């Protein structure tokens, strides 16, 4: 079977970031917690491969460590979405048309009315800014997304014959959801997870940019862009590097998601072959 081109490109880009993050735990070119003010705002040199920022920190090291923040926030936020949204969606589908279904779906609509930025604003106004807020805000926003996708897919599986067979064996709604529905919608959830992961990276960058996410000195891509804005006249590279890093990461994840969807969806696969 031929693998989709997007999948290979997506895997490649994503792998680079995963490796960079893992590597950052054992080695970075320079220590980002040490400020070397005399070396501030240097262009790329042999010592600093991508130059230094306004506090003399190595840009490459900052990008590597910043990737941790982005990826950690996005992963936990997807985890919150899956952990709460999927069970809610399964419950709604198993009790289709019931009062419970109605409550879950209306609750979803309510959360949808709060864009993640608005949730972050609310949380930050009350608890002060931190990376945890960004995780919570993006995570809460993810819950209705996964609940809807799960419910929609589960509903179509519930009408199939093997579910009827399972019911004649006396399996209850919970066991059917866990043993038959969930494995059959797992592919879809993986694809949705990849999409939400990339949206999470973008959202985290936006939140840290406006100061609602990770706080200094924790390096984060959005924060780096906010700092770079002051120097955009003199040192545009400072703004260019974190931005292009975000683009490549998000692009990689989107391609990965598209590639996985093509791989899992036999209809599209047949067209390609």
């Amino acid at each position: 079977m031929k693998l989709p081109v997007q999948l290979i490109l997506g895997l490649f880009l994503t792998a680079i970031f995963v490796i960079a993050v893992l590597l950052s735990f054992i080695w970075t070119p320079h220590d980002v917690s040490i400020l070397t003010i005399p070396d501030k705002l240097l262009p790329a040199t042999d010592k600093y491969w991508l130059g230094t920022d306004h506090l003399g920190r190595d840009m490459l090291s900052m990008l590597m460590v910043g990737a941790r923040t982005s990826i950690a926030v996005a992963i936990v936020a997807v985890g919150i979405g899956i952990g709460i949204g999927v069970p809610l969606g399964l419950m709604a589908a198993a009790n289709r048309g019931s009062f419970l279904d109605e409550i879950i779906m209306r609750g979803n609509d309510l959360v949808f009315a709060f864009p993640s930025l608005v949730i972050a604003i609310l949380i930050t106004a009350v608890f002060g800014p931190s990376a945890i807020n960004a995780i919570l805000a993006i995570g809460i926003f993810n819950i209705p997304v996964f609940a809807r996708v799960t419910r929609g897919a589960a509903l179509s599986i519930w009408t199939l014959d093997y579910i009827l067979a399972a019911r004649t064996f006396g399996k209850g709604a919970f066991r059917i959801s866990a043993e038959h529905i969930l494995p059959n919608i797992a592919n879809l959830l993986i694809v949705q997870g990849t999409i939400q992961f990339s949206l999470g990276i973008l959202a985290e960058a936006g939140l840290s940019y406006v100061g609602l996410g990770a706080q200094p000195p924790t390096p984060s891509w959005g924060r780096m862009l906010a700092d770079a804005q002051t120097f955009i006249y003199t040192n545009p590279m400072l703004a260019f590097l974190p931005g292009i890093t975000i683009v490549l990461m998000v692009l990689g994840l989107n391609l990965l998601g598209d590639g996985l969807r093509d791989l899992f969806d036999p209809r599209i696969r047949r067209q390609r072959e």
Partner: protein
Amino acid sequence: MIRFATARILSLSLSLIAASVVVFAVVEVIPGDPASYMLGMNAEPETVSALRQELGLNGSIWARYFSWATGMLTGDFGISYTYRVPVSDLIVQRIWVSLPLAIIALLLSIIIAFPVGLIAASRRGKFSDYSIMGATQMGIAVPNFWFAMLLVLVFSINLKWFGAGGFPGWENGLLAGLKALTLPAIALALPQASILARVMRSSLLETLTQDYIRTARAKGLTRSQALRRHALRNAMIPVLTIIGLQFSFLLAGAIIIENVFFLPGLGRLIFQSITQRDLIVVESAVMLLVFAVIIVTFLVDLAYAAVDPRLRKS
């Protein structure tokens, strides 16, 4: 249609009430005592109690919610603690920057996405389709605030066509105002246009597989004639959904973009208020944003029903 609209208005009111309860609970109930939160740790007890009095915090939670919610309905959002002016005045001033920005960006996104999506769909599998799909894939991955910085770098700093930020105010002429909003609107619109163009393309391609298109082709229409005359209208439903969803993203995005261009909009008001712990302003501004999202969703639902009678039943 009237029954459908009544049912939707009822659920609209319920959503608004539920959303206002959530906002009120987060801002006024969770922090415990909003007055001492707003004044910080070193505040004198007399000052705190005076502020409690001023904010009407001495009543029961239900009484406070009720007076806040009814106040909002009559346009009374309370008095800002830091600015000492009615919150409604502050918001009205700022909304005249944020709302036009979001609307211009939405229009721009539609103007770009429709032809682009149409070209990609009608030239499926050809070079132009691949180029468009590649470009939109990039467009989706670009954070709008970073794109905004690049625009400043190119058009303000290098070419000097536009100012790098700030807003002259509408009283200094429509043209000057629009000019100040041009780069921010482009920055907001392009990522959204990428999404919209892709939805447009796939929705058109989906519609093109329908039987009535085959009939149209069979009676002698070319592929692009069939696309223009029959597929276009039918493909609009998913596109409408996305446009509705995008408005809330654009409004939220406007808040971030305002920071790049130092525009005195709702976003800057919100962030300043967060720093100054002016909960009254944050509460009202957030409620207004949520209100806008719910209203737009409602309007999109009505628009569907107007376009497609089948949807009125559900």
